[in-house]
């Protein structure tokens, strides 16, 4: 297992070695690289290059060019010159003059840290190679992770090495140093009477929040606004209405037998606590034998979400109808249980809905063990109603806790933002300080934040990128990545952790605590001291031991948010009366704005991994689209996407007098008369990945202009078909299983009746052809085979994998984890469009069911099957793919000549071909490619053009574990659980089991003995080592 080691002593030692590294790269740069345009112009390479009519390879005809349009900057001739110059950088290797403690070259070290998103920490373990972090994994000890991660956690490592991050502070756009900034801060903020507005992202750091208090006391005329585009303000407000206090809603799905989600996609990575929730929910669906029981999930939603696809029952409703639906449910419950008198006698159009009765009955009969949640974007009154229902059902304290979060502002931050912008416009603000936020991009459009900034004399911000906001500042400070700076904070549920840096700041950035401290105290103080001082305040004695333990474990168990003992507040009934009498649903077409499944609110827009990660439901990469149901599409005259080329119609959406054009996409299961848009795309000037190009024709559309203070979530809008078309890069063209048996499922009652439902014979009514003959010959492994079967010796471990389809909910984190672990290149939209995606594990999504308007969606991760009788091995003319003794289908890149015959002959289509030299594009472009190169895993070969690649079962991890095991025990068989593949490790639902099949007690061997276990395409007799466990559903007979 990963052993986090205390980092305290290390950090100073690493400094020494890194200085040497830095000096080395400085030298290199002097000879080989150029740093500025001017310097470039003097570069001989460039002069030669500039004299040519076209840069090398840059003729219009060739494919290469638009491929180079991948990460578009490469289109710039300037970058090409850099490329030519850095093809063979001169590098010097120096030995460590002093061996740093614990560092053994080639052996990675693991340290605990934590990643903040929206201020909520997820505990992580960072894998370090010679002082550079290369991979993030979940921390088993941390409650918000329990070993799992979200896609954002996995992609954070790329964020650290993103070459487009802001490199230095900017003073009115000119480069400056952080010392310059400190000097400015000391003088500018010496005037404590000035009117300062602080706009900050959510941050749970106790250090940060104590600095915030200092800000408030020091600047008497200051205002502080916490702004998150998709924050939890409405939930907090709702809880205030319901219970009188501003509280956080924290579910504990471990205790929930019935889960009802009212448009709350709590399992997707976009939810701040998705990992913990996914762990809890999926754990309650682990069925190991016919005595198993499962929770039951209901989802009511407009767009098809991951939670909806995981639910046992799903109802399509427009987003605006959910409010009325919630009140109707409360009213129905009020006749069954006490505590909801506010809804007595209330009725609306949903009151007689079949679902209301079913849900009310289910919730009542599972009172105390049910959990009702509603999307965080719904207005506070809806949140309050849901909170009251949970309270009335006795769920509070059991399946849901209402947490007292000390750092919550005592204000409605949405209102506060509007107020402060009004003040700015009125010229009543002298200085605006923005920490982490990007309000020019994300603030409600009608506030016209950008314009308001022009009335402010001094604008200071801290951000990762020179983003839309940073461009408008007097002082921009580049922010240190969380892997570069000390920090602290709480998880969503209140577990306290210290954020340990893994590397010196690459670009000398400041963390948010250092930044705020500089403003308050006018001097640069190291984050380490600030954080340590905070923690010193917590303990009266034994600080050093505690500190070491916190760093080692990644969690401080001595403190947590406390759950409030809630009672319905006095004003609740009147608030509800007012709300229920004013319920409105949008008539006509409705537009809903959601955070994007892979880019979130836009903060991850420059991460190629996330851009290229197919949207979990639509499988679209590199774009956002207007999602609509088939019926709505028909109404708008939007045509179906054609197979192969995903050319789709462009619709124009007009809302509040603003309009935008965006590609339409038909999403079966979407609510009718409703269109879903997602944020984060259509950026300009952020970085080579995020930037959109050629207006709406590529790279998505910015939908924030449609998002006003009154239309934060949904609004009715005019939608029309423009008649234009646009090509989408979608990785899955065919959405039906065509009646095939790759995916098998049954309800839990069917499973109990017929535990063998997933076997080939049950599905097809006849046994696997050739099996009987094989048994006569004494072979029980599979059907008869023409070939001499390879023997797999017992003295070696025999690796196998089982994927539990009952756990997988399709989030896609396995894809990103694999990409990070195995150096899989990002290939760009054009190449994805041509069907050349490189992911070693993909997540197939099929629509199942007879109802085309409301199908079931199922997810199936597909890595290499590592067939024992591998069809790819038979056909390779040069024997580049062969079997190892421990049962892995291996790919020898050096031997591969690239006939692609193996990929053709793979029935599972898991092999990926390097049609171009993708890593070259990915790793050697830009003026300092060595930064992105640092994200690569040194244990995995970077593949050259023309070779085939595929999932290796993370052979580098397997072999390291085998070597360790052999050293310790003499046998190459590691103990069960010692070696985890990257996908398995990252999975928040623990859907993937991997291990040694010769060990009868290993988890994977036990899973493979389960009746639900089946092999994909078993009749082909490939004998895959990866198998699946059939999905189970837990439907309510009342809805059948």
């Amino acid at each position, binding site marked *: 297992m990963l052993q986090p080691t205390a980092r305290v002593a290390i950090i100073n030692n690493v400094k020494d070695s890194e200085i040497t590294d830095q000096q080395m790269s400085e030298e290199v740069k002097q000879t080989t690289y150029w740093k500025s345009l001017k310097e470039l112009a003097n570069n001989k390479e460039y002069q030669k290059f500039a004299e040519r009519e076209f840069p090398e390879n840059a003729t219009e005809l060739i494919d290469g060019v638009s491929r180079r349009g991948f990460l578009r900057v490469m289109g710039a001739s300037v970058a090409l010159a850099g490329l030519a110059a850095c093809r063979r950088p001169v590098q010097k290797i120096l030995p460590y003059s002093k061996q740093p403690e614990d560092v053994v070259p080639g052996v990675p070290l693991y340290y605990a840290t934590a990643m903040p998103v929206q201020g909520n920490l997820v505990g992580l373990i960072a894998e370090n190679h010679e002082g550079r972090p290369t991979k993030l994994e979940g921390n088993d000890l941390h409650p918000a992770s329990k070993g799992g991660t979200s896609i954002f956690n996995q992609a954070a490592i790329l964020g650290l090495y993103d070459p487009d991050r802001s490199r230095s502070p900017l003073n009115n756009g000119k480069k400056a140093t952080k010392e310059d900034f400190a000097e400015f801060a000391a003088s500018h903020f010496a005037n404590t009477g000035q009117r300062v507005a602080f706009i900050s992202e959510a941050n749970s750091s106790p250090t940060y929040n104590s600095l915030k208090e200092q800000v408030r006391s020091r600047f008497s005329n200051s205002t502080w606004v916490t702004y998150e585009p998709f924050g939890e303000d409405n939930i907090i407000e709702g809880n205030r209405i319901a219970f009188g206090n501003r509280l956080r809603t924290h579910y504990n799905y471990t205790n929930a037998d019935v889960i009802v989600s009212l448009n709350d996609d709590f399992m997707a990575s976009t939810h701040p606590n998705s990992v913990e929730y996914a762990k809890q929910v999926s754990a309650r669906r682990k069925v190991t034998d016919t005595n198993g029981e499962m929770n039951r999930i209901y989802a009511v939603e407009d767009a098809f979400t991951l939670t909806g696809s995981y639910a046992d029952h799903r109802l399509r409703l427009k987003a605006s109808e959910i409010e009325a639906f919630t009140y109707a449910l409360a009213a129905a419950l009020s006749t069954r249980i006490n505590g909801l008198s506010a809804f007595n006698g209330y009725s609306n159009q949903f009151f007689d809905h079949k679902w209301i009765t079913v849900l009310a009955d289910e919730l009542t009969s599972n009172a105390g063990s049910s959990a009702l949640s509603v999307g965080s974007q719904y207005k506070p009154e809806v949140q309050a109603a849901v909170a009251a229902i949970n309270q009335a059902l006795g769920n509070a304290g059991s399946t849901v806790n209402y947490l007292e979060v000390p750092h919550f502002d005592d204000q409605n931050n949405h209102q506060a933002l509007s107020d402060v912008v009004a003040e700015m416009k009125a010229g009543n603000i002298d200085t605006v300080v923005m920490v982490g936020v990007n309000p020019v991009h994300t603030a409600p459009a009608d506030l016209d934040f950008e314009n308001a900034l022009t009335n402010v004399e001094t604008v200071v911000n801290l951000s990762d990128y020179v983003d839309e906001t940073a461009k408008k500042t007097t002082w921009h400070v580049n922010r240190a990545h969380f892997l570069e700076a000390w920090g602290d904070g709480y998880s969503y549920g209140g577990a306290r952790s210290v954020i340990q840096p893994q590397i010196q700041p690459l670009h000398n950035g400041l963390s948010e605590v250092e930044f705020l401290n500089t403003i308050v105290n006018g001097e640069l103080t190291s984050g380490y001291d600030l954080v340590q001082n905070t923690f010193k305040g917590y303990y009266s004695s034994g600080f050093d031991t505690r500190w070491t333990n916190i760093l080692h474990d990644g969690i401080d168990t001595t403190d947590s948010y406390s759950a409030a003992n809630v009672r319905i507040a006095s004003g609740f009934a009147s608030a509800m009366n007012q709300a229920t009498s004013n319920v409105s649903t949008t008539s006509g077409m409705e537009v809903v704005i959601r955070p994007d499944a892979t880019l979130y609110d836009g903060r991850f827009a420059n991460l190629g991994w996330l851009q290229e990660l197919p949207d979990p439901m639509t499988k679209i990469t590199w774009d956002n689209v207007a999602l609509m149901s088939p019926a709505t599409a028909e109404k708008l005259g939007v045509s179906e996407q054609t197979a192969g080329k995903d050319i789709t119609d462009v619709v124009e959406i007009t809302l509040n007098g603003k309009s935008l054009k965006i590609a339409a996409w038909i999403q079966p299961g979407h609510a009718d008369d409703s269109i879903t848009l997602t944020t984060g795309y259509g950026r300009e000037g952020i970085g080579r990945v995020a930037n959109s190009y050629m207006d709406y024709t590529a790279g998505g559309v910015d939908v924030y202009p449609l998002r006003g203070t009154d239309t934060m979530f949904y609004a009715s809008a005019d939608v029309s078909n423009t008649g234009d078309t646009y090509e989408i890069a979608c990785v899955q063209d065919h959405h039906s299983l065509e009646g095939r048996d790759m995916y098998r499922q049954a309800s839990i009652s069917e499973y109990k009746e017929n535990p063998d439902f997933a076997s080939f014979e049950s599905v097809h009514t006849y046994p696997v052809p050739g099996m009987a003959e094989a048994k006569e010959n004494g072979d029980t492994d599979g059907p008869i085979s023409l070939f001499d079967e390879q023997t797999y010796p017992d003295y070696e471990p025999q690796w196998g994998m089982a994927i539990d389809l009952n756990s997988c909910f399709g989030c896609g984190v396995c894809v990103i984890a694999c990409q990070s672990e195995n150096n899989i290149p990002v290939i760009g939209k054009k190449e994805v469009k041509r069907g050349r995606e490189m992911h070693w594990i993909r997540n197939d999504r099929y629509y199942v069911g007879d109802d085309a308007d409301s199908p079931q969606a199922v997810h199936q991760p597909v890595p290499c099957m590592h067939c024992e009788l591998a069809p790819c091995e038979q*056909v390779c003319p040069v024997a580049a793919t062969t079997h190892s003794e421990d049962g892995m289908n291996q790919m020898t890149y050096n031997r591969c000549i*690239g006939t692609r015959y193996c990929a053709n002959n793979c029935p599972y289509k898991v092999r990926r071909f390097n049609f171009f030299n993708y890593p070259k594009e990915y790793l050697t472009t830009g003026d300092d490619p060595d930064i992105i190169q640092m994200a690569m895993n040194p244990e995995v070969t970077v593949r050259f053009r023309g070779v085939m690649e595929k999932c290796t079962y993370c052979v580098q991890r397997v072999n390291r574990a085998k070597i360790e095991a052999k050293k310790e025990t003499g046998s190459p068989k590691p103990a069960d659980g010692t070696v985890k593949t990257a996908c398995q490790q990252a999975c928040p639902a623990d859907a993937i089991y991997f291990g040694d099949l010769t060990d009868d007690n290993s988890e994977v061997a036990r899973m493979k003995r389960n009746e639900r276990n089946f092999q994909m395409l078993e009749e082909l007799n490939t004998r895959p080592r990866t198998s699946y466990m059939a999905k189970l559903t837990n439907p309510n007979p009342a809805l059948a």
Partner: protein
Amino acid sequence: MSKYQYVPEPALVKGDHDFSSLTRLVTDINLRETPKAWYLAMMGANALLMLMVVAIGYLIWEGTGIWGLNNPVGWGWAIINFVWWVGIGHAGTLISAILFLFRQDWRTAINRFAEAMTIFAVMCAGVFPAIHVGRIWVVYWMFPIPNQMAMWPNFNSPLLWDVFAVSTYFTVSLLFWYVGLVPDLATIRDRATDKIRKVAYGIFSLGWTGSNRHWWNYEKAYMILAGLATPLVLSVHTIVSFDFAVSMIPGWHTTIFPPYFVAGAIFSGFAMVLTLMIVARKIYGMKDIMTDDHMEKMNIVILVTGSMVGFAYIMEFFIAWYSGVEYEKAIFMLRATGPYAWAYWAMMTCNVFSPQFFWSKKLRRSVGFTFFISIVVNIGMWFERFVITVTSLANDYLPSSWDYYSPTIWDVMTYVGTFGLFFTMFLLFLRFLPMIALAEVKAVIPLADPHNYDEETNEYVAPKVEVPEPQSEKV
């Protein structure tokens, strides 16, 4: 008299030809000054050849990605073109070897021509397996060359069998062709007046004097090579079909492939011979030797092989249904009705329906119509390979991986460019080598088989040559 009357075969050579007029007719082409038209044609062919060189050069520079291939469809135009060209090559060997062994004397008019076509077609075909790989610079790893890695190729792989099959085929065809050329080269040598021709043809005619011993050796060698080449006609395309049939992709994994591929190869090869022959005999005035009777016989072969191919298409459907394998059933339904239905029906129209016109004797003997159908058949056979290669890969087992394949400009350029290679070689052949197997044609004219005696009296009578009137032709 029996009611059955002996109907003599029509004379193989029309017109009042004797040995020397035949010699002049054929070898004058090689001896006279190069016509301007030849240069023009050569320029056109060279331009196309350059196109191929550029397309391949850019391919090597940039990578296989310039083609339209994608994840499920790993083989596209390159493999289609390879199979297509190899198929075309088959007619030459069939005509020269199998028809020789079956004593089909009519082959003599076209065998040289067809064999040349074979060799050039195989050269064009050979380009593709070499360049379609991802790392062209190590393509020699396909050959069993002893090396420091102590690695043999994988002898299980049909691609490796391909390497052996095609290279053997090329070698034997080339030898066979050359051996047949020797007496004719000597004829040109003897007629040549300039030094260069004398020396060049002299070297390649290997000192042929036409002595009895030479003829004896020649006939034996030719017979042996014909015997060697005969199985190759069957084996090459059988092995090419194994590239598909040995894999496990629905639509590929079919036992009917070897005979079906061989029939298709002969089908397309004959069509290509006809296309070239009709043009060449017009330009070079060879209608006396390459007669309409030849054309008709070849059209019958096209009709037969076209129908065999059609039978195979229908049989594939039947077996897919009969097997009960849902993936097989699905792929054949998708071929006929799915995203590539246009290609499927183009194939059916060109290959199965169009040759049926040759049931009509009138159409069989129509030069214009034959020329048209010969081109249609080759288009159809290209589509057949397209349908087989692409549709099966694009729609195999897992629907999630299905994708659509379309070529890029570079695919098209490479394919069109191989015609440059083909025609460059062919024009060189027409210019410098006798396009008719002169020695063999001389052997089949009546003059070569004189019956200089009266059958009843056994007395000598002067040879009386009866040559049927040349048929009038409509071109």
